[in-house]
């Protein structure tokens, strides 16, 4: 639906106001693939399905784009995460469905309305 916010295409860099842990949380909530950029310059592409920031060595878990994994990546190895994949939740709201149905109904009624 128009107006719905999505993080698709966002390429944040962590700083004092946007800590890495928050970016990981957003990636965990994101319904699309992401690119995990590691401190050593390598990248992992896939879906972040879990994270735990409350343990001694916080980590995230992900499946790669082929479904391989799960891979566990410590926060300490992550530089940032880019929201590179399509947001599969975007534009699929119940409101959009209702609006579409109502538009269809209105169109049918208009088409059959007497002149």
């Amino acid at each position, binding site marked *: *639906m128009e107006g*719905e916010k999505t993080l698709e295409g966002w390429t944040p860099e962590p700083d004092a106001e946007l800590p890495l842990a928050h970016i990981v949380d957003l990636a*965990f*909530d994101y*319904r*699309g*693939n992401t690119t995990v950029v590691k401190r050593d310059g390598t990248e992992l592409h*896939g*879906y972040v*399905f*879990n*994270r*735990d920031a*409350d343990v001694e060595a916080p980590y995230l*878990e992900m*499946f*790669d*784009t*082929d*479904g391989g994994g*799960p891979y566990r990546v410590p926060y300490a190895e992550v530089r940032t995460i880019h929201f590179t*994949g*399509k947001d*599969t*939740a975007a534009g*699929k*709201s*119940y*409101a*959009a*469905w*209702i609006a579409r*149905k109502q538009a269809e109904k209105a169109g049918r009624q208009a088409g059959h309305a007497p002149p």
Partner: protein
Amino acid sequence: MSVPLSQMWTVASYVLAQRFRGRRKYPLVLMLEPLFRCNLACAGCGKIQYPGQILRKHLTVEQCLRAVDECGAPIVSIPGGEPLMYPEIGRLVTELVARKKYVYLCTNAILLKEKLEAGVFTPSKYLSFSIHMDGLREEHDEAVCKDGVFDQAVEGIREALGRGHRVTTNTTLFEGADPERVRRFFDAMMDLGVEGMMVSPGYSYSKAPDQEHFLRKQRANELFRRILSSPKRRWRFNQSPLFLQFLMGKRDYECTPWGNPTFNVFGWQRPCYLLQEGYARTFQELIDGTRWERYGKRSGNEKCRDCMVHCGFEATAVQETFSSWRGLRDTVVATVSGRA
């Protein structure tokens, strides 16, 4: 109340055994999601909004059975995704029935007739098809965002009943539901001959797109009072009468999030079927490692504030039945009188 006596006895003896052992957190129903893939794309469902490689994944039967054994709940509910799209659904159900687990296979029934004709399932008192039905034709097709599904579901129900299967329905009521139409829907399901109905208010999954359309608690109480205050004798519900009283606002319950633990391709879901706040690798890790104090109404967690969904509160109702003579008496009275 339409739950068979043998099932009631199994649940009762299980709950009493847990209490006798002093176990405070025990599961009642395992929500086993072998896959997220579905042949519908309901707007209210956050389960299907994943990238392709996740939707293509599914648990193996062995992974499912390990989870069942690890958890130990007497009832296994198989939602999804659409479980009839799971390639090994027949073998999975056969294995669960062999373990004497009461299985609720939650399906939209689009593929049900085809699977029944193919001989995938054998009737058993342990197996019930729980058909997703969100109302009469207009309401249901609107809820699942596809026309014609209601009629397919009815056809599936008839086929299953004709073959001697147990069939129940599960209904989620959303804001704007018309109490009179819901009552007519209950009549229609009883006319079809289903064993019993399950009903619950909708909840906004934290990742679902249509949060503003789900019921808030007060409006939900009002809606259920209007639907259930003068129930017809012929209506049968496949759930605790105390839970129905809770829906009507006659009882105030706290959530029992560990009552219906969820296992899927990501692991054991924290803290419940509805919220996805992380995953544990084992059931024990889920129980021991989840910060349960962060959830439920008393926690102040806004995600839990208005929740009345059966996966959190039916277990509470069942526990009340077996934790006091009063709870047992109220359950018996409601069951015998047919009044919620």
